[in-house]
């Protein structure tokens, strides 16, 4: 594993990991939680994520690029660390798994409604498994290929210019809504995925400019979200948006060509490329952590993780159940994405004071 990730590959990898199934509901979430011109809240969340990324940058700088496991294991005993590792691995395994299940359940609303969803889930899991058993360098390459396969979809937004009206956006900011902390969290979930860069430290070198790449991905993601949300606001109006379960699917369906109807089937299928990388990166993360506990072959570990999470994913049956699980896990993930870097910084500072860091 002498290959190091390139700047470009990391940028794309993180961007695709961040883009997930939430994008389908995002305009509605914004309208529901933030009311008029809710898309402005994306800019605020962007800034919070950037701060979070600065914390991770501090870990990278202070630790001089050492892997987070190395940092932790230097000062904390393994008996304390193993349950912690296990918790993170389970969290990531479940996040990946439920994201896949959510995609399948939404897919089944438009195609194959009565087929057992677990069959599709199994197919996605097999595809993901094939990627996970490769190293992260290959995953990043696959992500780049997938990126080119979906990035053109942003151009589809041109289609809505005809019916778009600025006046529908209204001049009011965050009116007709009750903003709570929960509102921000639910939007924040759409940005998650960047925290896996914590695990990338051993796979990059100085030339990768890891943290700059992640900042760029976050900026690209915010641009995509803001652009999509403005179009959705001007196309539907915020009151209508509130009533749509999956606004992006409605928008997909609105695009029609003389020779093809039901475009949402086709276009939603393309989103799988982005979602599979999200799933793969979480599972890969879970695998990386599990290796610290169980020194098994990567392939075997990946299989065990996928098998266990596949079994658990039998439990949530409806889309609502799955989404509730996902948001609970998402909140835990938000906590982790702030808590872990802060903990690591403290640890590094302590190590430095004790003179261990050399």
């Amino acid at each position, binding site marked *: 594993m002498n290959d190091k990730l390139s700047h470009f590959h990391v940028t794309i990898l993180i961007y695709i990991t961040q883009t997930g199934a939430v994008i389908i509901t995002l305009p509605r979430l914004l309208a529901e939680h933030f009311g*008029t011109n809710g898309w402005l809240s994306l800019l605020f969340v962007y800034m919070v994520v950037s701060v979070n990324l600065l914390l991770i940058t501090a870990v990278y700088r202070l630790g001089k690029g050492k892997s987070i496991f190395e940092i932790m294991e230097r000062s904390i005993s393994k008996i304390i660390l193993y349950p912690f590792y296990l918790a993170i691995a389970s969290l990531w395994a479940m996040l990946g798994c439920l994201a896949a299940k959510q995609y399948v359940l939404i897919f089944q609303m438009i195609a194959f409604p009565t*087929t057992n969803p677990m069959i599709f889930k199994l197919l996605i899991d*097999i595809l993901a498994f094939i990627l996970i058993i490769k190293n992260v360098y290959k995953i990043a390459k696959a992500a780049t290929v997938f990126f080119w396969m979906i990035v053109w979809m942003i151009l589809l937004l041109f289609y809505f210019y005809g*019916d778009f009206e600025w006046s529908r956006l209204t001049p009011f900011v965050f009116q007709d809504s009750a903003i709570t902390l929960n509102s921000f969290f639910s939007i924040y979930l759409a940005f998650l995925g960047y925290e896996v860069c914590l695990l990338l430290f051993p796979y990059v070198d100085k030339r990768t400019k890891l943290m700059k790449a992640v900042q760029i991905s976050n900026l690209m993601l915010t641009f995509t979200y803001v652009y999509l949300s403005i179009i959705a606001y001007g196309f539907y*109006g915020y*009151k209508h948006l509130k*009533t749509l379960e999956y606004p992006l699917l409605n928008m997909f369906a609105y695009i029609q060509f003389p020779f093809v109807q039901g475009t949402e089937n086709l276009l939603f299928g393309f989103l799988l490329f982005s979602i599979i990388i999200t799933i793969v990166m979480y599972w890969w993360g879970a695998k990386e952590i599990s290796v610290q506990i169980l020194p098994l072959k990567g392939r075997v570990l990946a299989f065990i993780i996928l098998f266990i999470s596949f079994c658990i994913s039998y439990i949530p049956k409806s889309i609502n159940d799955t989404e509730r699980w996902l948001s609970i896990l998402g909140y835990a993930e938000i906590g982790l994405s702030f808590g872990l870097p802060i903990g690591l910084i403290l640890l590094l500072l302590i190590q430095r004071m004790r003179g261990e860091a050399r």
Partner: protein
Amino acid sequence: MINKGVGLCFLGCLVLLTGCNDQRILEETGFIQSASYDELTNNRIVYGISIPIANPEIKATRAFLMTDAMSSKQARTHLSRQTNLQLVSGQLRVALFGLPLAKKGIWRIMDTLIRDPTISEKIKIIIVNGEAAGLLKKNFKEFPRTGQYIDRLIKKEAIRHSTPLTTLYSFSRDYYDDGIDPVVPIIKDTGKTISLDGIALFQDDTYKGKINPEEAVVFAILRGNFKQGEVSLALPKQSQDTTVMLSSLNSSRKVNVKYEDDGNIRINIQIQATATVSEYIGELKLSNDAERREIERVISDQITEQAERILKTLQRFSTDSLGLGTYVRNSMTFAEWQKLNWHDQYPNVNIECRIKLRIKDYGFRR
């Protein structure tokens, strides 16, 4: 290598075989192409559907089925008992609503149309002056299947702006927007043909009145930026038998909202239009600058007068079909807008309208 091959084959089979589970066989499927909704007593509706048939053994090109039920999905299960085909809504193009139902409100039916993921947001919403099922049931010998006939008629007329093109998307969008009310084309049976009967004006989801087909183009000019229209005008002010036909009519709208000293709202609509004269029967010469200006002035006045009449009608019905509420809303704070009951205010608002038309060219004759 062998292992990889076997693995790939297994994966391939798995992918392809999942498709066998949910089958849809074309010959056994009845694609509902048009649906009609009429009012019955006790909250029940009469639901009619038209399905094209492509079976060489059957002479008819389509089947029409009708039943009454509490909801359209319930009606579909009733209808399913009458046919050998599996009914699906994915190809639905036209939804027809009878006028009596429209007067009571059509939102109850919209729910199923919006909720069903197989139904496109682009299906056309159309009001029938009379009974919708009766019209859909009837065959018009010299025209395509009735559903298709209506679909194409509306699509073509919408290009010329003789009618708005109201889809499920645009209806629900305007329904939810508090600054605009939906409009829907209205059609009627004229014996051997179907004909456009004007534009139905809605307040939220309830029919309030209509605009005559002759005024449709001017209504479209008032409604927003406009491209490619045609309008024929008699100009009695110039002389008794002067007529003019304008084509390639383009226009752009500007709306200003002002507040009078006593707090009343005053709305000013400015419309700039350009057009080609394709027919002019009268005494003035179009090639003469002064005379052409005179014609422009007379036409502008005439269209402005028509527009003012339409505005009065809209205010009388209390339907803000032009979306003037959007401009009023955007001119005040959110709290003020919440306090202002736009639908109550609207009939009393002072609306001024000025249309300025320029003749771009006048054909090959000087």
